[in-house]
């Protein structure tokens, strides 16, 4: 890795080409790498890139037709703006606070009531974040500017709740996934014969052509099968849910994959020569500020402390199985 600077921009290492992109999705081609590498990137973008999502709900009033748990689940699924989350938010389990604080959570309030004769629809835009806050604000992409529907209210029905959004990854719950879909494809002509197409008379005639087929040479008639060939071009389609732009999803995926590898090097006690130049990038972001809490949890009274009695060291202090004073289990 000594000649890293000369390699930069060279033909060595994995190559990336952006085929088509906007602020919601990106079609990329990864080449000069193996299947395992491309697949690991896909998996990490899908499941291990952190975002914010509503995780706990304190329900004060819910007289709608939707039960509390149902509503909490719907709230959890709403994409919230998570750009630059690593600089702004720490994991609640790493935080020194007792339940949640501004270092480890974003508070969204929802208050809606139907007073008129016609029904009221409650949208994601009705979730109110602290003024001027960008992190944790609901992602709204439709042209009406409403966002996802949360609930509908009839005359006299009311919703009043405090939603606590926390940082998390999709390995814990899919609501934290930054992507709605991750397209992954290789070998559009099936030259490697990794797929055994089902057919009635002719696989070529009955199966549609891959949309990436024009990017590779079609097979030559009568060409012998190359059983040594390996896939080396991968077509990925990153489709964001809106919480992160696709380039940030990809960059974060790369970062967290590096971090994983760095933690292996760390634990195997490697005192190898420095000069790699990667030292900085691979520190776990959590480690840097996990101690910057509120100076111990003691003497911190919350109205919810009585129920759970969990000590502050458990991950998600006061979280799992705990009920809010209003009887609604707010998780997931």
């Amino acid at each position: 890795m000594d000649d890293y600077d000369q390699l930069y921009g060279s033909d060595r290492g994995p190559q990336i080409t952006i085929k088509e992109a906007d602020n919601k999705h990106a079609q990329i081609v990864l080449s000069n790498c193996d299947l395992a590498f491309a697949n690991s990137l896909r998996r990490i973008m899908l499941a291990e890139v952190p975002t914010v999502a509503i995780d706990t709900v304190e329900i004060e009033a819910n007289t709608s037709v939707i039960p509390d748990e149902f509503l909490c689940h719907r709230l959890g699924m709403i994409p919230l703006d998570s750009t630059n989350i690593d600089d702004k938010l720490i994991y609640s389990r790493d935080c020194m606070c007792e339940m949640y604080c501004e270092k480890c959570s974003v508070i969204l309030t929802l208050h809606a009531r139907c007073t008129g004769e016609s029904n009221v629809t409650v949208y994601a835009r009705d979730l109110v974040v602290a003024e001027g806050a960008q992190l944790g604000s609901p992602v709204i992409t439709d042209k009406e500017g409403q966002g996802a529907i949360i609930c509908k209210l009839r005359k006299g029905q009311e919703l009043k709740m405090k939603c606590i959004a926390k940082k998390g990854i999709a390995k814990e719950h899919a609501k934290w996934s930054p992507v709605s879909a991750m397209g992954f494809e290789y070998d559009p002509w099936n030259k490697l014969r990794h797929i055994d197409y089902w057919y009635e008379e002719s696989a070529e005639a009955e199966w549609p052509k891959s949309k990436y087929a024009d990017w590779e040479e079609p097979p030559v008639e009568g060409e012998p099968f190359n059983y040594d060939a390996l896939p080396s071009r991968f077509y990925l389609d990153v489709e964001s849910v809106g919480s992160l732009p696709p380039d940030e999803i990809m960059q974060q995926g790369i970062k967290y994959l590096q971090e994983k590898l760095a933690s292996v090097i760390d634990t195997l006690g490697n005192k190898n020569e420095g000069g790699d130049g990667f030292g900085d990038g691979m520190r776990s972001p959590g480690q840097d500020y996990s101690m910057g809490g509120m100076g111990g949890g003691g003497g911190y009274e919350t109205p919810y402390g009585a129920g759970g009695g969990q000590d502050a060291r458990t991950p998600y202090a006061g979280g799992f199985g705990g009920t809010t004073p209003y009887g609604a289990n707010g998780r997931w």
Partner: protein
Amino acid sequence: MNAPDRFELFLLADGEAKVTMEPDTRQPNAAIFTFNKEDHTLGNLLRATLLQNEHVIFSAYKTPHPLFPKFELRIQTDGETSPKEALLSACQGLIGDLQMLSQKLTREWELNKIARDTS
């Protein structure tokens, strides 16, 4: 409910190490590494990368049980390097590759953005 907490899939328990090494005494230059709270994302990546090392003569991984978030990676070398050295160099090589990829992505994205803005 006795379902384990989902965060046990990726958070190491108190005192648990990310990786442990156990020499495989049945054959020379072989070791089995156990990775805790990891899955195919890391397992298959390391396996494939190790096989590109000419001194590695065997590299394979398995998840002993699907309910336990760990995998075992067995590495055997030809004696020129140790399994541990091979694993470390695979990790370092990959971190470097990913760094290059990240920089290429930054550049490509900028170029793509300029093209989008002008058209």
